[in-house]
């Protein structure tokens, strides 16, 4: 009797993981012991220094320090006037403290709640991917999605967040959340050339802070998105311990490193001020940071694993493995769309940033444009609209708009969605027929290719109506205009376009190469794939000892 539940458990995999954790803990312990004053209950957070008017002018006028500044005289007068007025109306100053506090509170609520929406996307992706695979692997898919959230989160808690945001206060402090001043040191690099953050390991010390935790919640669910993207391409043949290693890798290293470079105040975001490349590398909500990283990691893993048994016949022609539950696929897609209402608008990290409505509309426009394109294109190519491709088209549009959503208008959003719909359809066929990379849920096309495109599209379509002062560039004027924001090729900013093209491509290469090297080595030490028998039977019982849909036979056996 083959008894899958009691198969010999390897000792080397878990041992290596624990050894790694101990090393990282010791790395994190030193800085944690020298902890700066963090504010875990937010007692000192939110006062008149956070009070800002509609135009972004702060209530508190800062004292000018640079006597050589040509505007010194004007600034000094403004400061003196403010001091005089503050002395005359102390109650107004107290009111400003309350206003500042409420402003922070509003943004806390906004960021946390949009973060919860993104968390809910886990359920959407679980349903989507489960529905797209064969019935015999349904429990396996659900467990991959579930375990992805669990283990990647723990990796992010240990060191991922610290690597990504440990230095965020230096160049990219989230003003709407109070600036998280305790996260102010790079582990590798410094100033405007940071490569890895160094504060907040184990979310302790400087990481145990009210503002920091809000940021953590929001950012961890974004990391989780990259973490579950890989499930779509490695499912139906990866074994569980190998999968856990992938998730720990994504949560601890792959995602946070690139995330630091772009969102944590790292070197890519600073290329605008250091090397004149537009506003530096810009990615509003993560077409590249989240989706392309996940998509190209997924591609590398799919290449390492190889295609599913029976996917390609003796002549190399692909076989179809139809989805076992289209109901799940569509429901999952709707949940993802709903969650994206948190993913994109939430990335302002502030409800006080009134661009959020535009972001929400742009996101939806690209989503429906992508879906419509996929449905119509597939109809013309194959004679019938394909429901699963329609869903992939919607997700493609969403992925592609994720970077540019705050910087473009409605028409550009539709165009971006349409192009993404075309890319995903052709991408799925290209991967399956030409590259022969077996991608059960189309993750590489939806997230990899469209993620790259989204970051580049920002460099083409950004219209300059938002983002003045982004990454510290052009706060007063940009391209000769006051208040000009992030601008793309079509409005005359070539350097931004080149920055986006280079940055997006670097993202793809980084994610693919890093993952490929690491897991080629891991696979050589111990294969990541399940046995042939387990794969043919379906991974539900061999890996987890239970079926997603126990048939009547099992109920009968267990009943007595």
């Amino acid at each position, binding site marked *: 009797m083959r008894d899958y539940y009691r198969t010999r458990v390897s000792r080397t995999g878990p041992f290596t993981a624990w050894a790694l954790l101990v090393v990282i803990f010791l790395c994190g312990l030193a800085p944690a012991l020298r902890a700066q004053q963090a504010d875990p209950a937010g007692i000192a957070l939110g006062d008149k220094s956070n009070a800002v008017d509609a135009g972004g002018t702060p209530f508190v006028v800062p004292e000018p320090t640079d006597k050589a500044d040509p505007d010194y005289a004007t600034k000094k007068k403004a400061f003196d006037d403010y001091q005089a007025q503050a002395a005359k109306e102390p109650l107004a100053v107290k009111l400003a403290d309350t206003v500042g506090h409420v402003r922070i509170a509003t943004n806390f609520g906004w960021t946390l709640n949009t973060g919860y929406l993104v968390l809910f996307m886990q359920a959407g992706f679980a349903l989507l991917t489960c529905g797209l695979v064969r019935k015999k692997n349904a429990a396996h898919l659900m467990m991959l999605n579930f375990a992805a959230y669990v283990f990647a989160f723990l990796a992010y808690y240990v060191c991922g967040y610290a690597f990504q945001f440990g230095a965020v206060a230096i160049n990219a402090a989230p003003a709407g959340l109070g600036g998280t001043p305790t996260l102010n040191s790079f582990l590798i690099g410094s100033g405007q050339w940071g490569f890895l953050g160094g504060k907040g390991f184990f979310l302790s010390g400087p990481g145990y802070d009210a503002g920091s935790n809000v940021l953590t919640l929001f950012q961890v669910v974004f990391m989780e998105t990259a973490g579950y993207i890989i499930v779509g391409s490695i499912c139906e043949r990866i074994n569980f311990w190998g999968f856990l290693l992938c998730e720990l890798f994504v949560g601890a290293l792959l995602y946070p490193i690139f995330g630091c470079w772009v969102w944590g105040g790292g070197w890519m975001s600073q290329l605008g001020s250091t090397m004149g490349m537009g506003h530096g590398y810009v990615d509003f909500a993560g077409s590249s940071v989240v989706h392309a990283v996940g998509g190209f990691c997924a591609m590398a893993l799919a290449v390492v694993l190889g295609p599913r048994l029976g996917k390609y016949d003796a002549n190399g022609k*692909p*076989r*179809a493995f*139809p989805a076992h539950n289209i109901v799940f696929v569509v429901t999952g897609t709707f949940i993802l769309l709903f969650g994206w209402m948190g993913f994109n608008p939430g990335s302002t990290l502030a409800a006080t940033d009134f661009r959020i409505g535009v972001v929400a509309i742009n996101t939806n426009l690209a989503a429906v444009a992508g879906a419509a394109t996929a449905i119509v294109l597939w109809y013309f*190519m*194959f*004679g*019938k609209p*394909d429901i*699963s*491709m329609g869903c992939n088209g919607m997700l493609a549009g969403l992925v592609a708009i994720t970077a540019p959503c705050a910087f473009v208008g409605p028409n550009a959003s539709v165009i971006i969605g349409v192009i993404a719909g075309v890319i995903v359809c052709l991408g*799925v*066929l290209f991967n*399956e*027929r030409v590259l022969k990379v077996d991608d059960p849920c189309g993750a590489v096309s939806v997230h990899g290719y469209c993620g790259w495109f989204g970051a580049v599209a920002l460099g083409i379509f950004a219209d300059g109506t938002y983002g003045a002062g982004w990454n510290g560039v052009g706060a007063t004027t940009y391209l000769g205009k006051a208040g000009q924001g992030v601008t793309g090729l079509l409005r005359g900013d070539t350097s931004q376009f080149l920055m986006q093209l280079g940055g997006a491509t670097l993202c793809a290469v980084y994610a693919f190469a890093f993952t490929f090297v690491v897991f080629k080595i891991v696979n050589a030490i111990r294969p990541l794939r399940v046995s042939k028998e387990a794969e043919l039977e379906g991974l539900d019982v061999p890996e987890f000892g239970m079926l997603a849909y126990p048939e009547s036979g099992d109920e009968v056996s267990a009943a007595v």
Partner: protein
Amino acid sequence: MKLIKCVVREEKIDETTDALRALDISGLTVSRVCGHGTCERQTVVYRGVRLESRLLPKMMIDVVAPDDQVDDVVHVVTETARTGEAGDGRIFVMTIDEAYTIRTRQGGVA
């Protein structure tokens, strides 16, 4: 005693089983099956890949009847299950060597 195995269209099952019951047969067993014959073939395309000769859902009715009832059973099934289009189904008749009733523990050589 004969086993009459009929493969019919899904939507014909109620009509056919009702008609069979009217014949006063001892019982029947119905299974959900899939399959195809010579004439009825269907090709579908899933995400750009062709699936040739898809197995189509059908219903299979197994009836065991004494030799003198076989012609009636065949006639009834043919009449009710037929549409005239490809995919109507087939009927096969086989000999039963022995038959037993579990409740009464009776039976033997047919």
